[in-house]
């Protein structure tokens, strides 16, 4: 955690001081700043607004938008929306999970890849679809998983 981020975060808390229902807003902004919500950040939010840490953590685990782990350098997001799922994205995400030894929603131990399951990302015509750091891959198959990984492993 850098000082600059801490200062930004402190300003965010200050700006939400008199806002009703500030906890989730603070959590969203904190995640924008730090990329995830580690214990120290959640505890600061809890203490600042006078709610238990367990409650902040409960919110963080209820909504899939919040992360508890530092995200990896490369974010692989596989769409599990209806169209993609029917077209076989379940097998695709399972293969990533197997090859990278990481459960969806988590980051590899070397901090390189984060694997995520997403809802519909709005290009069902390309199903099954996934994104790697925002770059869209359409009509992927389990076989194309090797190629995609090879590309990023070289980089």
């Amino acid at each position, binding site marked *: 955690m850098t000082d600059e981020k801490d200062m930004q975060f402190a300003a965010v808390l200050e700006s939400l001081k008199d806002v009703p229902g500030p906890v989730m807003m603070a959590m969203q902004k904190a995640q924008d700043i730090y990329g995830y919500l580690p214990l120290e950040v959640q505890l600061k939010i809890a203490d600042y607004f006078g*709610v*238990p840490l*367990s409650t902040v953590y409960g919110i963080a685990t209820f909504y899939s938008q919040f992360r508890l782990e530092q995200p990896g350098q490369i974010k692989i997001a596989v769409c599990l929306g209806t169209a993609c799922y029917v077209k076989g994205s379940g097998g695709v995400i399972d293969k990533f999970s197997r090859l990278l030894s990481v459960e969806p929603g988590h980051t590899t131990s070397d901090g390189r890849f984060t694997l995520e399951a997403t809802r519909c990302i709005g290009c069902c015509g390309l199903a099954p679809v996934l994104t790697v750091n925002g770059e869209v891959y359409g009509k992927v198959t389990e076989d194309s998983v090797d190629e995609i990984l090879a590309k990023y492993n070289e980089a």
Partner: protein
Amino acid sequence: MKNVNLKVNGVPVTVPEGTRILDAAIKAGFNIPTLCYMKDLCNESSCRVCVVEIKNNRKLMTACSTVVAEGMEVLTNTPKVRASRKITLELMLSNHHKECLSCVRSGKCELQTLATEYGCDYAKYSGEMNDYNVDDATPYLVRDNNKCILCRRCVAVCNKVQTVGVIDAGNRGFATKIASPFGKSLNDVPCVACGQCINVCPTGALREKDSISEVEKLLADPSKTVIVGTAPSVRAALGEEFGYPIGTDTEGKMVAALKAIGFDKVFDVDMAADMTIMEEGTEFLGRLNNPNAVMPMITSCSAGWIRFIEYNYPELLPNLSSCKSPQQMFGAIMKTYYAEKMGLDPKNVAVVTIMPCIAKKFELTRDDQSAAGVPDIDASLTTRELARMIKNYGINFAKLDPKTEFDNPIGKGSTAGLIFGATGGVMEAALRTVAEVATGKTLDNIDFKAVRGTKGIKEATVTLNGKQINIAVASGLGNARKLMDEIKAGKSKYHFIEIMACPGGCVNGGGQPIVDSQTRNIVDVAKTRAGVLYKKDKKDVLRKSHENPIVKTLYKEYFGEPNSHKAHEVLHTTYVKRDRY
């Protein structure tokens, strides 16, 4: 306030506007089952067991949260209602580890009771079940989420009443679970061990860490003299485990049962409470007369409260009395004075306590609680554990002699020590002694009624040698927090504060017999149990700690005077700042 007229099952009833259907039904004479709702505590409407029919209303409504309306016709027990409740219960059972045969809560489990009443098929829905690790890392509490029905009563009592806030619902859907942040064990979060979560849990998901086997090992060891001491409030609640009504005094039977179990000596911790008053009262007068002393002084009897202040207000630790709790003083006196007097090696003396409390299981592991070089206390049982032992030993509680007395020579305490079991009791006991010691005069009236009752924060002013002393009494840690925040802000007007972690004091402690939500709806449990203590106090002749002959003997033969060097070595302790996370 405006009144509302309605009918419950055809019975007309009038209640104030804003009343919930559940309370109107109770007034009309009908019980509605609840698994999440608990009076003054939890109103999540999450369990759906309290649903009722309302005439001209298509949907079933939750009686715990729906407010009455003029002319409303409520039906609490129709076939539609019963069918809905049954399905709800069967769905809960489908993801519940049904270990009822060996579950410690069996017979007192609200889920079990309702499942039986509603003729549920325990295997109606078979499907995926959660399988969680049991958290038994603390020395005082076990959480088994496999038996949790997600009612959130424990969350409400931890977060709202106690403001401890170490548990909440995490995750969502089928994965929802009540847990501490970041998957931590209760041992790694600032849990204070008050055990109030156990008292409100409808199932066996929360229970005390069982110490019965430790006690049995001590009893089986021929080299040990095993002494047992009972806390004031245990006698006011133990009977409930054997079918006696809430508020029954079972002191004699309790003593008889402990003798029957095989303890070598059965003493009363009330005696140690008297010693606490002597030490704490003297400490208070010392601080009062010292312009540089840290004020207000705060009591230190409640082990859960000590953990709370160590975690949350470490800057106020100097305000705490340095006195050990009565449990620890009891053990310390047994292993020093008593062992010496009886010619016993303290290593061969084992001291067991019966407590209304689970925090005492932690307290006995604290540092600086070993007056004789060995731990002051060897094991501590809750009231519930004692009841289990009595049943397991085949003792017929009903036939035990209610006049059985504690052993001599240091068995008996004054009733000032006895009322420690209720919120305000320590303060009242202290005032009886402090006022007489400070003024040298005998008090005409020793009933300090302003500090009695189950109100969360009580305050009073007494005059000592012409000086006004402001006192406050708080029970429940949310109330304690208010007083601590005042001190921190420099706005506290008090000289002396009593704090008990549990709402209502030890009579409502986390180790006391379980009282289900149906009963808690209609009975003030803490007040009714406290009634036992005040009734005994009213009748007794020995009502002041400093008049207890045992106390006089202890100072004459061993400690010299209160707060002496020897007393400090044996009866006082230190505190530590604890990191929350």
